């Protein structure tokens, strides 16, 4: 079994599972699944079998036949003998003791008022909690009448159809008004399926305002911050995305818009289909993007260049990807996701990064990977990260 073959089959398994769960696949995913099924008769037969609920139910029952708890007990007794554990655990305890001493001095230093009897676990949890944490599924939905609800962190998406519901079908609320806004805080992201079936992944510190029904002759939404759109095709009603400075028109396609107020430019990256982009106040000059191209709107002017699409939409795959990216741009992304403030000491404009880090790593490993360049030193102090030249 080759590694490549393995990777691909994990991927296909994910698609098949989604099909069983009646989740929708993107056109690209559908095509990939289709290609796999057509590779040979065995693949196709397997796929068909997996859609048979009775067969699946039998599998689930057989899968659950083993007594995992009991086997785990046996495994520990047979192979994880106390003798053996003591030996390796001695080192761990020494290391833990050292860390604890460091930890306690850290806590005493920063929390002088906290000279209360602290148990070991509270000491450790204080240290852990005081570090900025990566973001998760967090968002609020606000209606135009001012009512709002906090969305569950246990779900990653909502469907704004006739009712507002989570993706598993549990209804959240009746639709109350003509407009609603999905707002993500720093350290939050959320997915929304609009009434026309368009899917939008909203990145941290962003907001998306949409009509609860797409009546008129266009489908218009307003975005601040960043979002990835998979627009449902509808020739009759073009889909419009307006940001502070830009207007974008599409028929049905996949693209990413980055329009954070603290970025110099509004970047639009096209993955599939066709979009027309123009500056909000310049009706005469619009540019049509082709897949693999990115437009940047700076000071009212649009520039187009071919780019590595994967880098622009890495956040959707749970990654930060940098390619000769300057430190300021890098740190703005980190600040939005880990909800931190950044302090720069000295001129760092020549420091560039290339590489990729998981968005779900803890902040310390992110800092460590940034320090690998040996050009800068980062210090985490509570909710602040201080960046200085080495």
């Amino acid at each position: 079994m080759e590694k490549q073959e393995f990777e691909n089959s994990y991927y296909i398994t994910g698609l098949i599972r989604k099909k069983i769960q009646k989740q929708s696949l993107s056109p690209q995913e559908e095509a990939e699944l289709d290609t796999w099924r057509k590779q040979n008769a065995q693949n196709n037969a397997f796929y068909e079998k997996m859609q048979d609920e009775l067969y699946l139910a039998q599998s689930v029952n057989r899968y659950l036949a083993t007594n995992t708890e009991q086997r785990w007990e046996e495994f520990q007794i047979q192979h994880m003998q106390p003798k053996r554990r003591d030996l390796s655990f001695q080192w761990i305890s020494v290391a833990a003791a050292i860390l604890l001493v460091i930890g306690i001095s850290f806590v005493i230093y920063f929390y002088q008022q906290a000279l209360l009897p602290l148990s070991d676990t509270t000491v450790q949890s204080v240290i852990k909690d005081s570090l900025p944490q990566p973001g998760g599924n967090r968002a609020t939905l606000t209606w135009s009448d001012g009512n709002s609800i906090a969305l569950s962190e246990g779900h990653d998406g909502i469907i704004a159809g006739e009712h507002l519901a989570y993706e598993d079908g549990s209804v959240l609320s009746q639709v109350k008004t003509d407009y609603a806004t999905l707002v993500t805080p720093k350290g939050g992201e959320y997915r929304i399926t609009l009434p026309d079936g368009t899917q939008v992944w909203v990145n941290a510190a962003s907001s998306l305002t949409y009509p609860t029904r797409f009546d008129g002759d266009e489908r218009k939404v307003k975005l601040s911050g960043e979002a990835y759109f998979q627009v449902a095709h509808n020739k009759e009603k073009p889909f419009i995305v307006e940001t502070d400075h830009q207007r974008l028109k599409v028929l049905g396609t996949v693209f990413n818009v980055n329009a954070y107020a603290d970025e110099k430019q509004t970047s639009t990256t096209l993955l599939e289909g066709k979009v027309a982009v123009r500056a909000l106040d310049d009706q005469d000059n619009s540019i049509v993007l082709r897949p693999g191209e990115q437009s940047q709107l700076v000071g009212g002017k649009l520039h187009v260049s071919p780019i590595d699409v994967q880098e622009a939409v890495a956040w959707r795959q749970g990654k930060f990807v940098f390619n000769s990216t300057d430190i300021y741009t890098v740190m703005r992304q980190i600040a939005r996701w880990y909800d931190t403030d950044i302090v720069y000491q000295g001129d760092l404009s020549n420091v560039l990064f290339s590489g990729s880090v998981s968005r779900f790593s803890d902040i310390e490993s992110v800092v460590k990977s940034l320090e690998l360049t040996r050009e800068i030193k980062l210090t985490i102090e509570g909710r602040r990260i201080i960046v200085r030249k080495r």
Partner: protein
Amino acid sequence: MHNTTYHTDEETLLNHLASGRHTAFEYIYKEFQPALVFFAGNLLKSDDIMLAEELVQDSFLKLYQRHDNFKTFNSLKAFLYICTRNACYNHLEQQKVRQRHMQDYVYEYIDTQQSIILEMMHTETVRELLQAINTLPPQCKAVVDLLIHEDKSYAEISEILGVTVSTVKNQRARAISLLKGKISGVGIALLLLSI
């Protein structure tokens, strides 16, 4: 008990596993033991669950004794599946029982590795579907875990969790409604009704 951080954060899981942390190993054991026993049973074409369980214990021993790190979660999974496949294959060889059934099996294996890949996909599909249980609210999940994994009765569960029997029943009903759609309809019904 599944550790929720490990569930969503594979990188931390791998780091903890590499540094020999007990909780990380336990998490992987509990997540993959039923999967590998199911996989081995299918490869051996046998209902002898004890045999499959024994072979899988050896796969975990190999993991426990291994000192290299895994770079990705997928390579860890591949390691476990390959160990188990080899164990099944070795077992069949050692038996040297050249009955027709065995020859069929060996023939199939040599002819198409693909059927092994498909068996792995079959196992992973079920594993991924059952992960929906991890997304249930805590009390709901505790009830389902005790029902499914530990085969406890309503009365036993009510004692363990310190709640009334009717609460247990309510939580079970709630779990079923939450899981609908996540695991396919008939699948979950059969699964939960059979308990």
